[in-house]
């Protein structure tokens, strides 16, 4: 899997956006089709933010998805 690592400034911005969306009730649990042992296939909003904050591979993927959301919204505004 190709995961792009963001520069610290962008990472902070993405984390802030995740936190803000959670506070506004705009985040929900997600399911994944991934069978890795000891890795949950369901992530609550809190777990997503925690993984992103810790910089785990799946957390990086969550940040990457957050960036995609920004891009999709920008493209349509």
């Amino acid at each position, binding site marked *: *899997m*190709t995961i792009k690592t963001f520069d610290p400034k962008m990472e902070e911005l993405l984390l802030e956006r995740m936190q803000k*969306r959670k506070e506004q*009730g*705009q*985040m*929900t*649990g*997600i*399911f*994944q*089709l*991934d*069978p*890795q042992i000891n890795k949950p*296939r*369901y992530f*609550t909003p809190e777990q997503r933010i925690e993984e992103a904050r810790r910089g785990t591979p*799946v957390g990086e*993927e969550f940040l*990457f*998805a*957050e960036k*995609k*959301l920004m*891009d*999709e*919204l920008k493209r*349509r505004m």
Partner: protein
Amino acid sequence: MLFIRPKNCHYCEHGFYGLAHAVQYAYSKGLWNITDLNAEQANKDPVNNAINAKDPLSIYGFGHGLEDRFTGDSEENIFTTSECSILFGRLIYLLSCLTGNLLGPEIIKQGALGYVGYNISWTWIADTENGEFVYPDPYTDPYALCFWESANEFWIAMVDGLEFHEALQAMIDRYNAWIDYWFYDNPEDPFSQECIMWLAHDRDGLVALDNCSSYTDQSTCESRGCQWINNSCYSKLPQQKGLATSIVPLIPIIALVGLAFIIMRK
């Protein structure tokens, strides 16, 4: 045409019912050579037995996956990078996590006509209570529908007779249409941005490999039995044929046999 639909693996209920819509669509189009391996049948031995017995041209499987493996109902491996030669000469679509990284390229290397899958953890959201699905069928779930319908679109388009690259585009178009829906038509929904985010994530994680895609000029492409379209080389995949289409060449033979039968009875 072989479908693999596990049910008992973690959170597989949505895939089990989601792919049932693709199975039903294939039946509705008159395809009769369908093998639907579901629930406990969606495991390695029944899958290998069905491939050996029925020799399906195309396989649509859903299940948990990693870079190098695709798993079934018991979450045991069905196909791995070291065990996928059985897919020689077939078109494979694996709705699964991550197989586009290693397993997909190996499937092509082993001689498959085409492979479609994802190089990311395929992700969806759903209406849930305590982390469990409220609606078993994702097509009745207000959030899960857009994910499963988009993912099924490649197969629906192939069954409709579209070419490989056209079916891929149809799937991407479906993902984009759903992103537009959440942005323009339903932005007030609290989870509209979640849907946009994960639909874009899944769409961009799509990997399509074709055994002709390594040819980069028209003459080599066509000399290898492939077709040159929009400056790219694609396989000429045999199209799925419905009953009506397949029976047409047999009509004169059926008529002759019928006529002979009538004459003999007289």
